[in-house]
């Protein structure tokens, strides 16, 4: 693997916040050994941060320490580096010591968002989830537009099975990032888990609507990406609505023609899986299930 393609892949990872730690580490090591730091110039510092985190994630603390040393030499006393040192401490020191470290830094600078998020993450990890939720709500009161924070709150509520609160947090996410179909998909799936099937059906249909916003161009023939998951959701909702009498806690109306939705979802899923290779076990299982249900 050569240097330019590795650099390009790493910058894509940085832009899209991907956490593919093993791949980042392998490519980052190539860049580090191949003298890529000089080529990157100003971007080498964010690259070193990315490589340090990936190295900590795969368990290569020697490389992580080397990157941290290079960064500390260049930027002594930077708050962003305090956060990285905290993450490094989280791996080897006890949670109490780490919380003390973050507490001291937050006393000096109470609105450092990165450190606050690390503290909340440590609290969640050691099981003090009620404190973590309280701190996170305080953070979101201060910084309302932090989508990452709202998504973390959604995940925390889901982990303790409080799906109504999770849906309320997700509605804030949808306010802040309305054009992202993945958040609507999460809303739909959480509503289904909470038992509100008509709301879930409506949200799944919203996701499909977002998939092809251009009404003049023809819709694509085979669904791909998040739309497959949405069609599965519609199929599940339609099956349940036909089998049982469902009332919606949010008073969402049950859609008419549920039978037609069932047939449409089955047909769309068949086009996805019928085109695959005969040896694909997943495809044959799904097609069997579609024929049965």
């Amino acid at each position, binding site marked *: 693997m050569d240097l330019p393609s590795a650099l390009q892949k790493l910058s894509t990872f940085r832009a899209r916040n991907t956490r593919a730690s093993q791949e980042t580490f392998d490519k980052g090591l190539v860049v580090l050994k191949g003298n890529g730091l000089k080529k990157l110039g100003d971007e080498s510092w964010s690259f070193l941060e990315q490589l340090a*985190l990936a190295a900590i994630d795969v368990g290569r*603390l020697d*490389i992580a320490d080397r990157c941290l040393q290079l960064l500390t030499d260049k930027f002594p006393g930077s708050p962003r580096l305090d956060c990285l040192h905290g993450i490094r401490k989280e791996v*080897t020191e006890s949670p109490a010591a780490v919380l003390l470290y973050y507490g001291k830094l937050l006393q000096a600078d109470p609105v450092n968002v990165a450190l606050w998020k690390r503290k909340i993450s440590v609290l969640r990890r050691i099981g003090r989830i009620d404190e973590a939720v309280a701190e996170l709500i305080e953070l979101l009161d201060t910084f309302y537009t932090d989508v990452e924070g709202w998504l973390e709150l959604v995940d925390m509520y889901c982990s303790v099975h409080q799906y109504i609160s999770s849906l309320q947090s997700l509605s804030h996410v949808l306010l802040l990032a309305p054009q992202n179909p993945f958040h609507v998909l999460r809303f739909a799936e959480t509503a289904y888990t909470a038992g509100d099937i008509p709301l879930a059906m409506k949200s799944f249909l919203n996701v499909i609507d977002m998939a092809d916003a251009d009404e003049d161009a023809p819709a694509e023939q085979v669904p791909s*990406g*998040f739309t497959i998951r949405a069609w599965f959701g519609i199929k599940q909702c339609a099956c349940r609505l036909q089998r049982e009498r469902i009332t919606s806690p949010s008073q969402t109306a049950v859609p008419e023609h549920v039978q037609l939705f069932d047939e449409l979802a089955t047909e769309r899923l068949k086009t996805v899986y019928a085109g695959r290779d005969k040896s694909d076990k997943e495809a044959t299982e799904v097609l069997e299930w579609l024929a049965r249900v």
Partner: protein
Amino acid sequence: MFGRLLIVLGAAALLHAAFSTYEHLSYLKALGRLEESVPNDVTLEALVGLFLGILGASLDAPALKEITWASEMKKRSIDEMDSRLGFANWSNRGSTLLGESYGKGQ
């Protein structure tokens, strides 16, 4: 490849026409007949150079990309959208299981 060739030919034609104009104007200056215009074939050569250059640049353009938001979203995954790196858990049981030897390379 063909596009690049056309761009080179167009540039060459244009440069040749420019040089011919310069030579012709210095010839006219030497003879003192400054009222005459540049001959027709030089103008024609310049226009041909322009046409070839436009054709070559259009053929050599990179492939078109999708512009809709929906098509961009189809290429993303849930892991990217939900990564929440600010809250991510970077520690694992390695230091407890392996003790002092955790974190060193082979």
